[in-house]
């Protein structure tokens, strides 16, 4: 890394080397059968150089040919965008206890056993349709070095566990996921939860076309988050496409809504001391008591807007990211402040409505404007506070800026990721009844 930076330094005003070392062991059981195990072990390198005030970027997979990386970045910089920001000097070395060295060489058989015992549990409870299980042990070491003198290093590990019970005659079904920095036994309560969701979906219900209450479960939260990510991004602000432009300090949502960017949660695999530009991350209120508090910025958008980076420069998009994804402002981890009603009471309060469990099509619709229109996918029809069965052939649509003005309640409970169950009044529903 140092050699690469040294070479780049000779050809540039400023440079930055980004190196990610990844090791992944994934296991997939489909209908109880273990599939191909695709181990991954690789290194990826990103080089950004600023030469004659212009930015050039290159990527590679080997540190053995640093000359080529520098040559490509210099070439790109000839036509690159003009840059006025500086790479940071300092970062954070804070640990959020999300690294366990044992996960780096976690035995495949232990993952397989975990999957097998879960499959047995469901089968013993009478589940006859296919059970799919995904288990992943992963580790990543990220190092960022730049000519301002920064050397930032962060290691994380994670064990991911997903169980899915396939609905009869369908290709998918309800699922639960668990993510932790180290291995922990599967919580039977979670298995029971999934079993209950699965049982509730056995009966199919047609849904009428009219406005009704709609509950977003934590699994459905991405429909809302993707729209919010776009709106709070410094990029959208600069392009004047954010509906939140000019709304700082103003009430935009129901006053019970508080959402924070929190990259510092202990044991959470996603937690980060610094972003993909080496800038220190921070806990940041995005919406507090319904009032819009902060946009998020990376180095580029912060400089253009005349402010500081909030430590939100990530190589990621709505679809995930890779080494070659340009850095843009993106939250690390949003969390909600819990509400005042239990999930059970929220369901009781639904005179008529839909519970959205795994909606389909969250990426369609006018995302910058906050609009969505999703197939219910897996969801339930509720009448007089009682789940009637799986809602089929139905769509739910709305606009987050209108819907959050018409919020019924936020659950007391949050899932591991800090997501609540949100119940909205009068949302547009289209069905076939």
């Amino acid at each position: 890394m140092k050699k690469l930076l040294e070479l780049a330094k000779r050809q540039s005003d400023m440079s930055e080397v980004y190196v990610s070392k990844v090791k992944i062991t994934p296991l997939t059981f489909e209908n109880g059968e273990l599939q191909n195990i695709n181990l991954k072990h690789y290194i990826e390198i990103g080089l950004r150089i600023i030469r004659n005030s212009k930015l050039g970027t290159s990527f590679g997979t080997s540190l053995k040919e640093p000359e080529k990386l520098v040559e490509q970045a210099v070439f790109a910089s000839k036509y690159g965008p003009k840059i006025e920001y500086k790479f940071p000097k300092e970062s954070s070395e804070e640990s959020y206890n999300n690294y366990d060295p044992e996960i780096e060489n976690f035995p495949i058989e232990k993952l397989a056993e975990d999957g097998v015992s879960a499959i047995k549990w469901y089968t013993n409870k009478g589940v006859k349709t296919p059970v799919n299980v995904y288990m992943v042990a992963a580790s990543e070491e990220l190092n960022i070095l730049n000519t301002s003198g920064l050397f930032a290093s962060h290691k994380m590990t994670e064990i991911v566990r997903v169980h899915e019970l396939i609905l009869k005659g369908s290709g998918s079904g309800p699922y639960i996921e668990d993510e932790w920095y180290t291995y922990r036994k599967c919580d039977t309560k979670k298995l029971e939860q999934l079993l209950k969701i699965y049982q509730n979906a056995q009966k199919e219900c047609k849904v009428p076309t009219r406005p009704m209450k709609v509950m977003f479960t934590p699994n459905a939260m991405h429909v809302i988050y993707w729209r919010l990510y776009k709106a709070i991004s410094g990029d959208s602000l600069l392009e004047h496409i954010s509906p939140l432009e000019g709304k700082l300090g103003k009430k935009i949502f129901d006053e019970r809504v508080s959402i924070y960017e929190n990259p510092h949660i202990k044991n959470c695999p996603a937690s980060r001391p610094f972003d993909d530009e080496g800038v220190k991350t921070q806990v940041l209120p995005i919406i507090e008591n319904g009032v819009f508090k902060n946009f998020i910025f990376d180095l580029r958008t912060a400089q253009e807007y005349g402010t500081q980076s909030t430590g939100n420069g990530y190589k990621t998009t709505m679809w995930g990211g890779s080494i070659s994804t340009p850095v843009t402002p993106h939250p690390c981890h949003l969390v909600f402040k819990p509400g005042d009603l239990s999930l059970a009471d929220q369901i009781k309060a639904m005179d008529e409505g839909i519970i959205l469990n795994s909606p389909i099509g969250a990426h369609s619709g006018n995302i910058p404007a906050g609009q969505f229109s999703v197939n219910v996918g897996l969801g339930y029809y509720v009448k007089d506070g009682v789940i009637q069965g799986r809602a089929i052939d139905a769509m739910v649509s709305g606009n987050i800026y209108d819907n959050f003005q018409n919020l019924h309640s936020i659950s007391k409970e949050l899932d591991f990721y800090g997501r609540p169950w949100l119940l909205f009044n009068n949302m547009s529903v289209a069905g076939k009844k």
Partner: protein
Amino acid sequence: MIETLKKGLSMCQEEYADIRHETDEIILINLKGKKLNTISDSTTSGFHLRILSGGGEGSNSFSDIKDMPQAIKESVAAAKIGGKYTTKPIAFKQAPPVKDKVTISPEEDPRKVPLEEKLSLLKHYNDLILKYNKIQSTDLYYKEWVKHKYFVNSFGTELDQEQLICYISGEIIAGDGTHTENVRVEAGGYDSFSKIRNREDVFERKAKLAIDLLKAPKVTPGTYRVLLNQSMVGVFIHEAFGHFSEADIIKDNPGILEKLKLDTKIGGSLLTVIDDATLYGHPGFWVYDDEGVKGRETILIKDGWLRGRMHSMETAQAMEGELTGNNIAVGWKYTPIVRMSNIYIKPGEKSFDELLSSIDKGLYICDAKGGQTMGDQFSFGAQYGYEIKDGKLGKLLRGINMSGNLFTTLKNIIAIGNDLKFSESGGCGKGGQTNLQSGLGGPHTIIDDIVIG
């Protein structure tokens, strides 16, 4: 490189082994509004190794050649563990061994076009869009992806393949101060740079559309008879049906397999659906897939009857199917999975005017904006649409998303036009792999009883 891979292969004494080395050279330019956001030039490369042993399959993606012996050892161990936890041992249907070199000869090779020219062409299109008052912003990409793949396997196959895809794609955002609308734009999608030159009409048309949508009313949710344009039909057949013809999706799903037995009538007699990797000039063109099987035309539905599926060597063996050459990985980091190449609905006989005039009340839905399937449910968005009244197009509508169930919807196709057209660029996400080499198309088509939200 072939010799290096063969040396690696000689270290494996297992039932089956293959090794692929891939170099990806990618040029990316991104303009956001008036600003140039990124220019990058990159070369990444790595290996992917697959081993069958003891009834299981282990594979390994690694970037450093010195890790090869360790990768082989780990893959063999993984395969053996895999075999222990399955009641259905994995085996591959043997493809005829082939030794071949596939090179490309584009009409205009983008590698010979200077970067400066690529940038100025992208800027030119961007300026055309931004000249309109109500255009708020753009997010335009030029992407050029050259792949060089070497592949050897223990059946004796040795391949050296080159592939290239270049295109412009992105988003146009219009705004009037209170409201924004976005539409997508694309040009190119295969190996020749000439396909993205002289395309001013595409960018101008989409810019005007985005502005017109600002004033357009939102569609009223409900159930409609819909006329889909070619882009929508392509996405519909890809999302709603195509994925269920990928054998790896259904292999271990007895419930779906029961519904999708070959020689089952699943659609009206006017419906024929084909997947074809041999269609040069479309994104899903390839000669050999990533396990060395030759790409071909596969008839999936013929006159409403389910007749075929897309296979890998594994699924062809497990399901007693034919080898179709559909097993593709999007790069060395990934193991190949069954993918569509160019999927399309075969054209029928009706003209657009005949289709339109047959609808008393309905919607004309145009240009796809992303789709997703979950099991037998699908959902996808349209960039715009029109009301249809008494066989005539009415006002422009926005905010259209359609959804439904695969099985009922296929049966609800009531008329197919004669105007087959393929989308220029494609793209499909499956199993964490976003495949740009995915083409789709179809003629104008009428479907009944579609839920619009």
